Structures are given as C-alpha cells and as structure tokens.
C-alpha cells in the first residue's frame, strides 16, 4: 500500500541528492543541472499532495514551476555561455569577482 508518506520520502531523497550535487559539483552547468533535480523533487511533492487532498491546485503549481524553471534555465545558460566566453573557465571556484 503506497501512501503519501512514500512519495514524500522519495521527494526528500531526490531533493537531498540534488543538494549534494549543487554543493559538490564545480562546473557551472552541472550545478544548474542539480538545481533542476531539486525542482523535480518539489514537483513530485506537489503532485503527491494534489492527489492526497483531491485538489488540482498542486498540478497547476507544477505547470507554473516547469515554466519558470525553463525560463530560469534559459537565462542561466546564457550567463554560463558568457562566462565561458569571457573568463575561459566554467569552474565556479574561479568566478569570484563581479566585474573583471
């Protein structure tokens, strides 16, 4: 019998794995990818609650989260391209000044 708790624990594990990815990875693109993983964990949580409360608002929220994540990835990747072009590095440790 799969309850709400199962889905929430799965979502928590996914969020923790995404968080470990954000902290550990040094490549800017991989940090953005780990943030996408955390978005997906939140989506799973929303949909599980939407089914549990029989309210479709959770799925509407997932609709908007997917849209906002797509817009954010667009701008984030544009910034990453600029960084690679100017500083010739994608290592997050070497990007420590706002103006060069």
């Amino acid at each position, binding site marked *: *019998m*799969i*309850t*709400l*708790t199962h889905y*929430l*624990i*799965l979502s*928590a*594990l*996914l969020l*923790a*794995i*995404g*968080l470990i*990815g954000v*902290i*550990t*990875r*040094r*490549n800017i*693109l*991989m940090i*953005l*990818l*780990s943030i*996408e*993983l955390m978005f*997906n964990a939140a*989506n*799973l949580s929303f*949909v599980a609650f*939407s*089914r*549990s409360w*029989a309210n*479709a608002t959770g*799925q*509407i929220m*997932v609709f*908007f989260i*997917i*849209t*906002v*994540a*797509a*817009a*954010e*990835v*667009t*701008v984030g*990747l*544009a*910034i*990453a*391209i600029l960084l*690679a072009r100017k500083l*010739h590095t*994608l290592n997050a*440790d070497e990007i420590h000044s706002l103006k060069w």
Partner: protein
Amino acid sequence: MLEAIAFYTIGGLMLGAAVVVITSRQPVYSVLSLLAAMFCLAMLFVMLGAYFVAALQILLYAGAVLVLFLFVIMLLNLRSELIPHVTSTLRRAGSIIVGLLLCLQLGGLAIHARIGQSLPDAAPGFGTVEEIGRLLFTTYLLPFELTSFLILAAIVGAITLARSKQTVR
C-alpha cells in the same frame, strides 16, 4: 501489490539516475541520466493520476530544457580544460552530511503527514487536460498570463546576453 512493485522499481531507478547525475564525470552522461530520472518521474505522475502534468513533464522539461542543456554543453565543450574534476574530500563529506540532515528533517515531517492512510481514489476527471485547462482559464488566469511576460523576459534576456559582439551596432 502491483502498485507497490511499480513504485519501488520506478523510485529506485529514479534515485539511481539522480546519483549518476551528480557523480558522472562526463556532462553529457549527467544530462542523459537526468532525462531518465524525468521519465521515471513522469511514470510516477501517471501513477498518481496527474496525466496532463506527466505529458507536460516529458514535452517541456525533458524535451525542451534538457535539449537546451545538451546544446549548450556541446557548444561549450570544445576545450577540455573547461571541465574541472577535483573536489576536496572535506566538501564531499560535508555535503553528504548536509544531505542526510535534510533527508531526516523532511522524512520526519513526511512520516507525520497522514500516517498509514492510503491515497484516496481519484475522481473521474482528476488530472485530465479538461480540468487543468478549466482551472487555468478561470481561477488561475492571472498567473497564466503573467508567465507569458516571464517567458518574454527570459527570451529577450537570453538573446541579449549571448549575442556575439559582431552584431553590436
């Protein structure tokens, strides 16, 4: 019983793909495992009865966002020194501890949420395109229109940022 088998299989596959995402050396392998994780997530959405959101997940997230990632990785991957490999052991250990703490906190909350109760049976129209569409165009019309502004801002921002210098007048 079948539902439990499906849930544990898909959940285990998704967590395995997530671990490959954060530990793989090759960026392309990470993106492809995230693609696998998103497909597993779409399967879980179908199990929960959210059919429209599952289709959106595959179309938008896996089909647009990850393809964009792949394009940028292939565009920027020509010089191999751009990809760093070293992470100190202290940082890895610290991140695993932080992840475990987060899991314990959220898991503790999750166990207190409706413990032991199975999920209620979905209403016949739950999660279909018709119901989501009806909600989007009545109750949530304002956020729906505002996302169009957000997408426009993202497009203009991305083009302005990533434009090459030769086209600047």
